[in-house]
């Protein structure tokens, strides 16, 4: 019995450790000098990590690597003990919910068909009725009921973005990757979607990487903030729990929020 417990305990304790996203000496080079890294990161599971950095710091490249979209990279990138493949192997074991900057909806499929397609690929073992219910539920949570039959062209930017987010959540991903998803939206739409994103994530937590160039957005959403600098150097990892656990309504007006924003601006200035 004791022996059994001894075996069980470390595996339970190690679970979140196992599920961590770990980068070791991650380097991406297209032949004209490194685009990213060398980068070392250790991000425990089930957290929202916002990735900040000026353009050219490799934010999007990091996200692409995590999505398994890069043909090759140096070093290693591991999620839950399994390497994220260079290319194809990624999705087979690690479910990735990707929300690209341009929303990435297939223009020839309606809102619900876009989610259906993703579910069919990500969850082939589930029956059709269950997938359909999942798709409808997430569209409803995103406030898109009644628009499921629309083609992306007949939706506004904010609506398209919500379809993309619904799709990413619907597959119940291990890794949720968002690449500056709100950068093309107006301020009011953006704030609404930030809140919606946080609510959805609380309902269904996963390891979320959120790339942004907006310092305030990074502070508002992230549990930890990863700051990449343009010159190859170690990323700065900032603990943001003090803001993360504030109530959503208070965040923007809270003193801690301002302080954290100032703090990060200073780091970004000096890190350059």
């Amino acid at each position, binding site marked *: 019995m004791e022996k059994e417990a001894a075996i069980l305990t470390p595996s339970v304790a190690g679970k979140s450790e196992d599920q961590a996203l770990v980068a070791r000496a991650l380097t991406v080079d297209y032949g004209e000098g490194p685009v990213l890294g060398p980068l070392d990161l250790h991000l425990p599971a089930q957290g929202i990590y916002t990735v900040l950095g000026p353009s050219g710091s490799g934010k999007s490249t990091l996200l692409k690597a995590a999505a398994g979209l890069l043909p090759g990279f140096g070093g290693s990138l591991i999620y839950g003990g399994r390497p994220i493949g260079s290319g194809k192997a990624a999705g087979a074991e690690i479910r990735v919910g990707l929300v690209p900057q341009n929303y990435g909806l*297939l*223009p*020839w*499929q309606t809102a619900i068909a876009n989610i259906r397609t993703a579910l069919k690929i990500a969850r082939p073992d589930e029956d059709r009725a269950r997938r359909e219910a999942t798709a409808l539920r997430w569209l409803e949570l995103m406030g*898109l009921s009644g628009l499921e039959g629309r083609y992306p062209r007949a939706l506004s930017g904010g609506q398209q973005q919500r379809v993309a987010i619904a799709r990413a959540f619907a597959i119940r991903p291990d890794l949720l990757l968002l690449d500056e998803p709100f950068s093309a939206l107006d301020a009011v739409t953006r704030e609404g979607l930030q809140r919606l994103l946080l609510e959805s994530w609380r309902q269904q937590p996963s390891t979320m990487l959120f790339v942004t160039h907006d310092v305030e957005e990074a502070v508002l959403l992230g549990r930890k903030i990863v700051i990449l600098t343009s010159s190859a150097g170690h990323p700065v990892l900032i603990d943001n729990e003090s803001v993360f656990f504030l109530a959503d309504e208070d965040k923007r007006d809270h003193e801690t929020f301002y302080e954290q924003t100032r703090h990060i601006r200073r780091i970004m200035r000096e890190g350059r």
Partner: protein
Amino acid sequence: MKSGNNTEKSRAGNNGEKSNPESDSATSRATSRPSRNNRISGFGTMLLRLLSVFVVLHVLWGLIAALLKRDMLPSPLVVYRALFKLDGGDMLLNIGTSMGRVFAGIALALIVGLLLGLLMGRSPRWNRLLDPVVYLTYPIPKIALLPVAMLFLGLGEASKIVMIALILVFQVIISVRDGVKAIPANTYDVLTSLGAGRMAKFTQITLPGALSSILSTIRISLGTAFSVLFFTEIYGTEHGMGYFIMDAWLRLDYPGMYAGILLFSGVGFLLFVLVDLFEHRFMKWRA
């Protein structure tokens, strides 16, 4: 039709951000009605325009026929009388035979052309290899190869179908390749990150993405295929629209000849409409 879509879009844009499902669905319901009405009236005007062109052409034809007063251009009335006197079963066989050849030729061209076009569009290596081949052979006037096709394949169906396919296949290859190339690479990102296989990517992205250029190729091909068909039906057959027209001509049966030409055009027009309907069904997302 256009204005209907615009209002729909702008109203959806104003309303949607409040994430209020009630108002969203109300908007879509309210705007779907006028857009449908517009579509019907748009279809009506289109039909009216086609009809008026049809009538004007016939009036012109009648005028020229009346002015010429020669056997080689009978009046529309005479031709239509000849048209309705034609043996239905016989003409059905002629039309059926011709359609069979056209469809077989187009199908063959599409199969080969899609395969090569997709290959060249998706793989730079295959494109490098095949591009010079296409570039070099494209300008050859393929109709000049008709005797060669007859020598190798005989006078029967094979040479006719291959001839049609041969002429069409190059434009299919080129437009499919360009259509596939025009799909932005990042369109594949989300499905790739989900671990989609080749087949899923092909059916969900490559094919629908290239469908619009495939359909416009088919539209152009249809006209070309009919012209080639006419040539190939001059020899080695006793059925088909081309054969019928040439036969009537040689018998100096001018009303019959014109009746054949009318029928041939009518069939061509129907196929054209068919492609349009197909496009309307599958290209809805672009409207």
